[in-house]
């Protein structure tokens, strides 16, 4: 059982969202540079060097921390781009760097000993041996846990390691082990590890056909919707496919993660920080989600009943179903 209060780590895709998250009660925000060095490399998102420095000043003035994600895998012959991103993050006064690639971790450990190093979920470190290796080699202080562990497994892991753990509690849900999924590049040529994108929008088409709308990615039909049905984004692993004479959401239903009901369980499991996914989200969404989780975390920390996060977030579910994901063993 941790004695310190859990830290609420919130997404900041833009400077405006950073300010919104801080004002809504984020203990820390995480963000990335406007290039392929971070895993949310979408048009119109992310920070320049100056914007990051300004964001860090704002966050620090309000008692919040800034964590900079440089968590894609550096390209052959261009490793310097990733190293420079690390140098810029360190110069900005940010509180930590989140990285996955050995090359990036090694650069931080050798050249920026003063800054905290967090191991990204993209590194998929899920065992005491793997986490211990990253701690011994690079001095990581925290590991962002892969979204495939149950509460019981997280508790056992925390008993076996000396670094802090950070667990996702809300937002998009990868059903595959992150950092080890090449489905997107198989279909489109672009992937999270190489380009910081998954199922990229430029490869998406919505084709009107007599039976309805086909949502396709790079020509592969990911799902099909009848007339008048709401049409979803064709994220590869959330599609409907045929296998073994069955048509189903084979990999995962189109659900998002909501572990709002598990905050006390995560605290009991020894988790240090709770992470909200969604750097691609706007500031209205981020404000509301952060405010709701701020209340929920504070309630748990004060030993009271967990507030009903679902009720607080009624406006943000967008009709989509939610799951507690792998935290419950039956998910497997």
């Amino acid at each position: 059982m941790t004695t310190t209060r859990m830290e609420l780590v919130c997404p900041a895709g833009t400077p405006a969202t950073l300010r919104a998250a801080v004002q809504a009660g984020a203990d820390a925000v995480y963000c990335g540079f406007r290039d392929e060095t971070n895993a949310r490399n979408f048009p119109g998102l992310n920070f320049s060097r100056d914007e990051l420095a300004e964001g860090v000043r704002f966050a620090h003035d309000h008692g919040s921390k800034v964590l900079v994600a440089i968590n894609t895998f550096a390209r052959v012959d261009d490793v310097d781009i990733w190293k420079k991103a690390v140098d810029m993050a360190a110069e900005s006064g940010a509180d930590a760097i989140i990285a996955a690639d050995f090359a990036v971790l090694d650069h931080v450990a050798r050249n920026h000993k003063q800054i905290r190093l967090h191991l990204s979920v993209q590194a998929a470190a899920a065992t005491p041996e793997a986490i211990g290796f990253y701690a011994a080699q690079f001095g990581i202080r925290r590991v962002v846990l892969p979204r495939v562990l149950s509460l019981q497994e997280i508790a056992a892991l925390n008993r076996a390691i000396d670094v802090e753990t950070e667990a996702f509690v809300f937002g998009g849900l990868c059903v595959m082990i992150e950092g080890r999924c090449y489905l997107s590049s198989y279909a489109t040529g672009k992937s999270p590890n190489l380009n910081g994108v998954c199922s990229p929008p430029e490869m998406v088409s919505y084709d009107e056909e007599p039976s309805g709308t086909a949502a396709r990615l790079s020509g592969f039909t990911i799902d099909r919707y009848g007339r008048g049905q709401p049409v979803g984004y064709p994220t590869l692993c959330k599609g409907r496919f045929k296998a073994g004479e069955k048509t189903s959401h084979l990999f995962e239903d189109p659900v998002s993660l909501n572990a709002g009901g598990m905050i006390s369980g995560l605290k009991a499991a020894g988790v240090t920080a709770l992470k909200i996914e969604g750097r691609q989200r706007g500031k209205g969404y981020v404000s509301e989600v952060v405010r709701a989780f701020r209340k929920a975390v504070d309630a748990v920390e004060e030993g009271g009943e967990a507030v009903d996060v679902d009720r607080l977030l009624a406006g943000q579910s967008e009709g989509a179903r939610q799951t507690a994901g792998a935290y419950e063993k039956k998910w497997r």
Partner: protein
Amino acid sequence: MSEIALTEIALTLGPVFFHWSPDRLLDFYRRIADEAPIDRVHVGEVVCGKRMPFSDPAWPAVIERLERGGKQVVLATLAAPATVRERRSVEDLCGDERLVEINDVSGLPSRSGKSFITGPFLNVYNEASAKFLIQLGAQTICPPVELSFAAIGAMALKCPGAEFEIFAFGRLPLALSGRCYHARIHGLHKDSCQFTCEQDPDGLSVDTLDDQQFLAVNGVQTLSNQVQAFCPAPDALVSKGVRRLRLSPQTCDMVEVARIYRRLADGKEEPEDARFALSCLDLPGTLVDGYAHAKPGWHVTAPA
């Protein structure tokens, strides 16, 4: 080193990804030991630790047979160890005197300082990461399948301390999950899965709603439906410093696959003839090679 050694391309048989019975494994490796022109064979379960109680009894005989046949045996380790038993198996294998294939960072602490091979599940995307692993003992590096031949070649030329290998043949390993899709399709739970993955020795095909062949599932693993068939000319490999081709087992005639690649690597068969010969085999999907050419993996781009 002699001129011949400098231009020689070696063949590796990767680990079997699928849940094959012990008898099937013994039969398969007996033929590989006797007939396949392959110098290095990786054995062991890499996808699902739950299968290990079934396959474990087969390995001593398989290894003995392969070594008697003059093959170098490499012990492959789990790509996503989780339970105490799975973690212990990785640690035990990493203590072996034989070479091991490391597929998860979990194996590195118990193997550092001794030679190892990194398998396609370990993320090595650039020369700096490769050098980090070489300094720990990596002697052969088989990068993730999504990296292009050009990228692997650029890494190889900057890292003379290790040998580089490219995934040349077989359904491409694309993803791992905590969830078992065979269990999910059969309405079961991973913890009581009934090992239905055994019914699909090449993986279970996953088609789109429009019947496009797309993916295949194998327990917690997702593969391509299509079969990688990267057939480079040997001088292209040599000029890029890529010295090994990995052939990944499917139920088709793998001895014939090895013979085709041996002829290709020896310059005795043109790439297009090798591709044609592969296409004549009983394969679970059509041939692709997009990844090697920095294209989407399912693309067919032909000449190397």
